[in-house]
Every structure is written in structure tokens, then in C-alpha cells.
């Protein structure tokens, strides 16, 4: 789960003592914002969104007065940032920046361990940092990296050429970032920039105000592990992968698995643009993925994604079948899965799907102009496919049914050819010219 900056700072930076700018969070101009701007002689107002490149989208504004701040809050809240509506703004203390580092920690499949990535050229888009100016440091999996290990890394990236005076402080801060990464069960923490800023502080000997350098994390991009020992939803609530609101069908599907852990039938997502005309009833993670991929490849337009598995009972299969079949604008249905090891085909197709078709036919809500292609293997497949065929016959449904003799990814090709031949289907993309 990806966190908003204010969540990351408020919950994780604070807890792990990662230095950051003072801030307030707001959704509209108010007295707290005005007071903050008066106290700090200006502020930076940032949109709270999950997309990157906020600066380029104009969603980070520098303000000097209360009036400017109020205007910025109002403007940003009304903005679409790369298609995403801000949930709030952060009003942050301005920073007097001396230099900007890039610092991230994530898991690498090269070393199968955490890796700390550092560069002296932060601030810009990380893809634009030249490859020889950014360094990955694998570290052994464990709760801590010692500050001396970080100092070795900082020396290696040239930190001490100019900033040796704050080497020790920087190593402590980055060791804390690692502690936060491990402790919060993050998949990724990215701080860009981790800034070296100038601050005014009282000199201990003379008692006069002098300029000193210190480190401050001026951004927070944190992605928590969805499989963490404490599910991130418990703390941060459910979060859709899309910027659009969930559809009725997507919400209904979520309810299928909520109170019943037998198998999985409730993963149902529609494309971001809600389009598509092929109802997808696909089984298993890998099987579903190759089937959908082949659909796109041959010019079909999936209307939904599913990933049904783990031998769900007939009731669950009944519920997800009705949801898939209820989306308007469908032209074909693809029922497609590999060779199940565990999932019973007589229960899922022969009972759950068959009952859904029969009931919808009775209610008059079944579109009998759809063309169906079925491909499935697994326990009790003969019985399951026979029951489904009998159901197609009594409901006048145009369908072809295959078992595992047909390679799984030939099923989308067969559906496309049938739709083109019998329903004048307009094939998408390049396939149309081919």
C-alpha cells in the first residue's frame, strides 16, 4: 500500500525520528494555516496525491503571505494532479537548501536483500540521475544497519568532499531511515530530496546566531508491504489501485470473499476506463494473466479481470458469475483456466456458473446473444463441462467447450474468430489491419 506524504511523515518519520520540515495538514484555508504562515514567514504548499512528479504538475506552490497560502490551498484542492484529486495539502516550513541527496531503500531481487541507494544528485527525477552518480549498496537483511556502515557508503558517493562536518549526523539519519524501512515493514522508502539545509542556531561558545548545516527529509514516498504482519489496511483503510471510484460490481465482488475464506472468487476489477466487451471468467493467477494478455494481443477487449481459485464453493462462483455477466455492453464470455490441482470443476462450473445462468435466464436478465468459449481442466472436469453444456443447450446459448486438450491461450483466439464470423466483432488495435 502506498502512503500519502502526510501519512508517511506523521506516522513513520515521527516515530523513527527522521528529521523533516514542520508542517500542518489542511483541506481548506483556515486559521491554523494562516498562523503557520505568519510564524514561519511563508510556506510550501504540497498536494497530497499518490502520483509522482507533483512539481511538474504545478501541485507544489511556494507562498509568502497568508493570502497567497489560502489561495494555494484552494487552488491545489481543486486540481487534478495527473488525473488524481488531492485528498489534502501539506503546508510545510520553507527550507534554505544547500544540497540535495537522493536516498531510497527497497528490496533487490539481484541480492535478495534490502538495498540502500544513494546519490549526491538528488532533487531531480531519479531516472535523470546519470548512472555513474547513483550507487546501490546491498545490506544484510536484519533490523539495523550500523551508522559506520552508512559512513562508508557516504564516503563512497563523495559526501565528505564538501560535507564532512555533518558526516556523523547524516549516517545517523540514514541508519534511522533503514530502521524505519525494516520496522514499518515497508517495501520501499524513497526520500528525494534528503536535503542538506542551512539553519540559524545559537553558537554554544559565543551565544551569537550562526548558520549551520543539517539534514532534512523534504519528501516521503513510502510503500508498505501488503503482506505485512499487520495488514496496512488496519491502520490506513482500504485503498483502490485506481484514481476513479470503484464500480458497484467491484464493490459487490469484494463482499464475496469478505466473510468466507473458502477459496477466492471476489477479485473482480474493471479496466480503468470501464470499457471492454469480453466478460472474463478466468482462474488462477498465472492462468488469468496469460489469458488476459493473449486477449489484448489478439484484439479482444476484456471488460474485467478476475482471478478465481482455491476451490471456491458453488455460492461464491454463483455470485461472481452474476457480477461478470451483469456488465452492460458485453459481446462474448471467456471461461478459461488451466489444469486445476484442487478446484473442483463440477462445483465451480457445473453448479455455481450453471445456477447463475439458469436464474438469470428465468429473471430475463441473461443476454443470450453472447458467444461463450470455455476451456478448463482439473478435478471432475468431465462432469463439470457436461453440466455446463446441458445448461447452454436449455438456454439457447451459443458456446464451444474445450477441456485441457486445447492449450489455454488458444481459447481467446477461438473466441475472437467466432465473434468476427458470427457477430461482426471489430477487432482492436493493429490486429484490425492485419
Amino acid at each position, binding site marked *: 500500500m502506498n502512503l500519502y506524504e502526510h501519512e508517511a511523515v506523521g506516522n513513520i518519520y515521527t516515530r523513527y525520528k527522521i528529521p523533516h520540515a514542520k508542517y500542518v495538514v489542511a483541506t481548506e484555508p483556515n486559521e491554523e494555516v494562516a498562523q503557520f504562515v505568519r510564524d514561519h514567514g511563508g510556506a510550501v504548499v504540497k498536494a497530497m496525491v499518490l502520483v509522482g512528479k507533483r512539481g511538474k504538475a504545478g501541485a507544489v506552490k511556494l507562498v509568502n503571505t497568508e493570502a497567497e497560502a489560502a489561495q494555494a490551498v484552494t487552488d491545489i484542492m481543486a486540481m487534478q494532479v495527473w488525473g488524481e484529486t488531492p485528498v489534502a495539502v501539506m503546508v510545510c516550513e520553507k527550507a534554505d537548501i544547500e544540497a540535495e541527496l537522493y536516498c531510497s531503500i527497497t528490496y533487490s531481487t539481484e541480492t535478495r536483500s534490502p538495498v540502500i541507494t544513494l546519490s549526491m544528485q538528488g532533487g531531480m527525477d531519479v531516472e535523470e540521475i546519470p548512472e555513474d552518480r547513483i550507487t546501490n549498496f546491498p545490506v544484510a537483511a536484519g533490523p539495523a544497519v550500523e551508522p559506520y556502515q552508512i559512513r562508508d557508503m557516504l564516503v563512497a558517493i563523495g559526501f565528505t568532499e564538501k560535507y564532512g562536518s555533518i558526516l556523523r549526523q547524516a549516517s545517523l539519519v540514514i541508519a534511522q531511515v533503514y530502521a524505519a524501512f525494516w520496522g514499518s*515493514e515497508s517495501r520501499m522508502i524513497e526520500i528525494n530530496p534528503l536535503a542538506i539545509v542551512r539553519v540559524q542556531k545559537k553558537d554554544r561558545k559565543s551565544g551569537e546566531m550562526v548558520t549551520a548545516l543539517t539534514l532534512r527529509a523534504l519528501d516521503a514516498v513510502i510503500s508498505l508491504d501488503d503482506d505485512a504482519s499487520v495488514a496496512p489496511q488496519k491502520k490506513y483503510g482500504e485503498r483502490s489501485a485506481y484514481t476513479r471510484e470503484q464500480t458497484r460490481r467491484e464493490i459487490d465482488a469484494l463482499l464475496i470473499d469478505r466473510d468466507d475464506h473458502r477459496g477466492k472468487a471476489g477479485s473482480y476489477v474493471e479496466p480503468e476506463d470501464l470499457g471492454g466487451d469480453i466478460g472474463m471468467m478466468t482462474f488462477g493467477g498465472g492462468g488469468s494473466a496469460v489469458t488476459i494478455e493473449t486477449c489484448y494481443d489478439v484484439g479482444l477487449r476484456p471488460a474485467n479481470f478476475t482471478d478465481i481459485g482455491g476451490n471456491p464453493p458453488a455460492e461464491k462462483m454463483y455470485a461472481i458469475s452474476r457480477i461478470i455477466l451483469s456488465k452492460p455492453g458485453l459481446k462474448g464470455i471467456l471461461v478459461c483456466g488451466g489444469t486445476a490441482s484442487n478446484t473442483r470443476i463440477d462445483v465451480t462450473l457445473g453448479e455455481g456458473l450453471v445456477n447463475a445462468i439458469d436464474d438469470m435466464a428465468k429473471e430475463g436478465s441473461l443476454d443470450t446473444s453472447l458467444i461463450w468459449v470455455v476451456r478448463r481442466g482439473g478435478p471432475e472436469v468431465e462432469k463439470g463441462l457436461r453440466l455446463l453444456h446441458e445448461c447452454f443447450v436449455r438456454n439457447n446459448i451459443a458456446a464451444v467447450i474445450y477441456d485441457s486438450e486445447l*492449450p489455454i491461450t488458444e481459447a481467446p483466439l477461438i473466441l475472437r474468430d467466432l465473434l468476427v464470423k458470427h457477430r461482426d466483432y471489430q477487432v482492436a488495435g493493429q490486429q484490425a489491419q492485419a
Partner: protein
Amino acid sequence: MYGPSILNENTRIVVIGATGREASQVVRESEALFPGLILAGVTPGKGGVTIEPEVPIFNTIKEAQAAHSALNLALIYVPPASVKDAVLEAIDAGLKTVFVITEHTPIRDAASIYRAASEAGVKVVGGTSLGCFVPGVGRIGAIGGKDPSGALGEGNVVVISKSGGLTVTTAEMLKRRGHGVYFAMGMGGDVIAGTTYGDMMEELEADPNCSALVMLGEVGGTYEEQAAEMVAAGKFTKPLAAFVGGEFQEDQEGVAFGHAGAVVERGKGKASDKKRLLAAAGSNVRVARYYHNLVDCIEELGVKPNLADSVASQVPPKYSTI
């Protein structure tokens, strides 16, 4: 000794979390197929119970070892939050192979497990492994259901897949075209995988029972790229047919949330990157455009079927109302 290091004639299994619903079913089915392969189960607090017909349950792995000194493989079925504990117990007990069937292991625990296993010289397969099947020798996990020989024929092709479902589906597609398997293994699709294609390839290169490798990959990580590097370095010279899923997602990405992954794995991780690197790795590699082209790929590389080809060139439907 016939069979790969992870499952062969010497393998003797202890099932951790054996009294759970899925695990006890797998124990019963596996014992019906290969009696004597599973010697014991462990569920803390349930020591003294027996899973019918005759697999005794112990409280700890050390207790199980005291009764069955031949144990050398732990098959893990515990809930995600207990996986690390179970694997470390198995490593500490000196077992040399561990299969983690459990899905959704926290990534932090997976990284800790990989570190501990590497230091101890233990091979961990998974998390999210479907298991492994070696025809004639044994079966780990639920792979192939009650009757694995229905979908998996005996032969010399090795199937290694991130996706569990596609492990069996691919083996069956091969069998129907006349290619039996030496073994089929679900390595799991977790970010931190205990055992990858690359971890198996050195052994497969040296094993005369392996004639070819079929690799099912997925978008994300760099395990497919590592396999390509091994081929390019001449460490794997046998025929290799690969399919990598997930290319369609590449067109659907928006503005990325963070970039750390992209920096750590620059120019890697996408399905198209993987396919390109594999295709360029050596003349012994073919990358399938469609998943169902995999069999053609290994045949193009000169692998001959050892069973009857039972597939019509145009497969007729079982039923049709069109």
C-alpha cells in the same frame, strides 16, 4: 540416486503445520501416491495425534527427528506470520531442503529466511510454491491433485514456473504433445524467492536426466534476467524455452509512485526486458510469443517427444452449440 536435489529417492518429508485443512488433505493424498515419503508432521501443541492412515504428529521438528532420523525435507503449510519461525526451525534442525507452500509471506521475513538459508547452505523453495513432482519418485505439495500422472507424463523436460497453476497446465500441454517431464516445480512468484531458475540451472546442466528446461516467468524482479545471464555465460547450454507473462501491463502504467525499484533494477523487470534478454542470451533459447507456442519452441530446439502426441492439429470442441 534418481531425481533433482530437491526431491529424489532419498527424500523423507516432515510436514510443518500438518494438521491444517489443506495440509492434512495433501498428506493423505501424497501417502496414497507415494507411501513412506512423508514420515512425520509437526503442529505445536498437537503432538501425539496421527493423520490417518499413519503419519504421526509431533510438537517440534527435533521431536520428529528423534523418532525419524531420515527426515531431510520440511514442507511448510503454516500461516504467513509463522513461516519464518517454521523455516528457521527446519534450518536449525539441519534439514537441507524446505518447501514453503504458504502464500503472502511478509517480504521482510522472506529476506530474513533467504539470508539464514544461504548462510546454512539450505535450499528453500518458495514462498507460494505449488510444490514439485518427479514422476515415479515423489510429490511435494498439491501439484497435480489426486492424480498427478494424469497431467504430468514421465520424461526429461524440466518445468519451472513462478505461477503454480501454469506449472501443471504447462506440463499437461507438453504431455499431450508427447513430452514427459523429469520434474515440474512451482518456484512461486514472491519478490524474494528462495530458489530461482538460476539456482537450479547449474544442477540441471550437470544432470543427464534433464534434456531441456521450460521456464514460465512473470513481470517483476530479475530472476529471468539472471537465467539469461547464466545462458550468456555458458553455464546452461541445454535447450531452454521461456514464456514471460505480463507484457500487457506495460501499456497501462500511469505516473509512477516511487522509482526506487526502477533504479535498483534499471532496464530490467519488465516482461519485454526479460523476453529480449532471454532471446539474445544464446542459440539454445527460444522465447514463446504466445504461451501455447512453448512446445513448438522446445521442438525447434531439437527436443524429441518421448510419448505419443495425442493432440489433433485443430482441436475439436468437446461440446458445441454453434
